[in-house]
């Protein structure tokens, strides 16, 4: 199972590195959103610092929609999705592999955007451990939920517009939890960062288990 998941993740990440869609399109999109936030609030540096965690995670979630959509688009482009079904790979492994590849891309995006937030919004990190753990847990949560909903809409002609509509409400707990944890890590609010991290980990675990169990049925319908 892990061998197959590793195979799928490796394939997806190799495709992303080759195509450079993440580097040339998704990262610039995310940076642009972040800069627009900075332009909108730049007269009030204190407001920028206060709202930096929320703006950061809204940007990550918007960019994640592109990464998730792309992950399924490469399989649908020339019939590879059918081949995956015929390959005999366990759907749990396909789910795990695709979610892992998306999570890796999100972590890279978070690191780049984190640097952007520090530079543009003038924030200071007080708790690095909390920051890293919250970033990883949130990436896992978004990736697992995104992989599940990505498969759900993959076979539909309106998948590009339907995915945000379905996924964003579902990952609202990630936005809230990750924002609170980052507020604590940045020292901009007295939130209980580690408690919110628990929520993020719980969300990732629930969607990980739910996705693994239901992915086979979703692939059949896609």
């Amino acid at each position, binding site marked *: 199972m892990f061998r197959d998941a590793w195979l799928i993740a490796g394939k997806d990440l190799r495709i992303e590195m080759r*195509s450079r869609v993440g580097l040339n399109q998704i990262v610039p999109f995310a940076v642009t959103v972040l800069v627009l936030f900075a332009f909108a609030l730049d007269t009030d540096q204190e407001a920028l610092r206060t709202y930096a965690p929320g703006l950061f995670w809204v940007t990550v979630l918007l960019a994640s929609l592109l990464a998730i959509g792309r992950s399924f688009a*490469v399989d649908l482009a020339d*019939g590879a999705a059918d*081949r995956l079904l015929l390959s005999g790979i366990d759907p749990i492994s396909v789910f795990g592999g695709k979610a892992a590849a998306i999570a890796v891309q999100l972590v890279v995006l978070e690191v780049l955007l984190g640097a952007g937030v520090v530079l543009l919004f003038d924030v200071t990190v007080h708790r690095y451990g909390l920051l890293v753990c919250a970033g990883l847990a949130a990436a896992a949560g978004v990736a697992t939920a995104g992989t599940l909903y990505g498969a759900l809409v993959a076979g539909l002609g309106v998948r590009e517009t339907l995915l945000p509509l379905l996924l964003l409400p579902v990952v609202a707990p990630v936005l809230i939890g990750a924002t609170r944890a980052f507020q604590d890590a940045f020292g901009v609010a007295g939130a209980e960062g580690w408690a919110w991290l628990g929520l993020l980990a719980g969300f990732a675990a629930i969607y990980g288990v739910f996705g693994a169990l239901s992915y086979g049925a979703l692939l059949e319908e896609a």
Partner: protein
Amino acid sequence: MESAVRLRAAVTLLGRFPALAGVDLDISPGEIVLLKGPNGAGKTTLLRLCAGLCTLSTGQGWVLGHDLSSERRMVRRRVALLGHRTGLYDDLTVAENVGFWARAAGAGRQDVDEAMERLSLTGRLADTRVARLSAGQRRRASIASLVVRRPELWLLDEPHAGLDQQTRDTVDALVRGAAAAGATVVLATHELERIAVLEPRVVSVVGGVVRGDDPPDSQSPNSPSDAEDDRRVS
């Protein structure tokens, strides 16, 4: 002997349209079967049903001894389907694509090398991204990625489309070799004269049903036309 494919009153709906409208078909292991019929007759759907990619709406079906209603995952592991699309990733090289599908099927490096050699995908071509290949080269790479799986049932939809003469001969040799090794081959094509050299059993598919066996070289003047199936769709 157990049939490689056994369908009884098989109906497959695509939406509300009966792409297969009650198919009865038996194919023995090791047979080469040509599905003949006009566009829209249901040949591709029949191949996809045998691959376990379409569902049986009503009727019964078994492929390689597995029930098409309850054991489709078992069927899929043992068949190879060459469809209209290649199933390849544009941003990976030919070798990476074939290697990926080989590892997914549990095949080894030697299987990959043999398949690439057989389809003339060696040298610089092996390290070329699929996006930069011609249609014929893509088709060859697609076939190589199926060869590594060593399937027991080959389902080939227009296998010669886009191939040059040399590669067409390679595909024919592949079909013969697969059948000689005991695998079953089901092809759908309009190139009846070309396929005749393989001496297949010819099965007519018209209007979503199998109309029975024809002589291999028959192109009957009464053959149903595309118009007949167009009327069915409308």
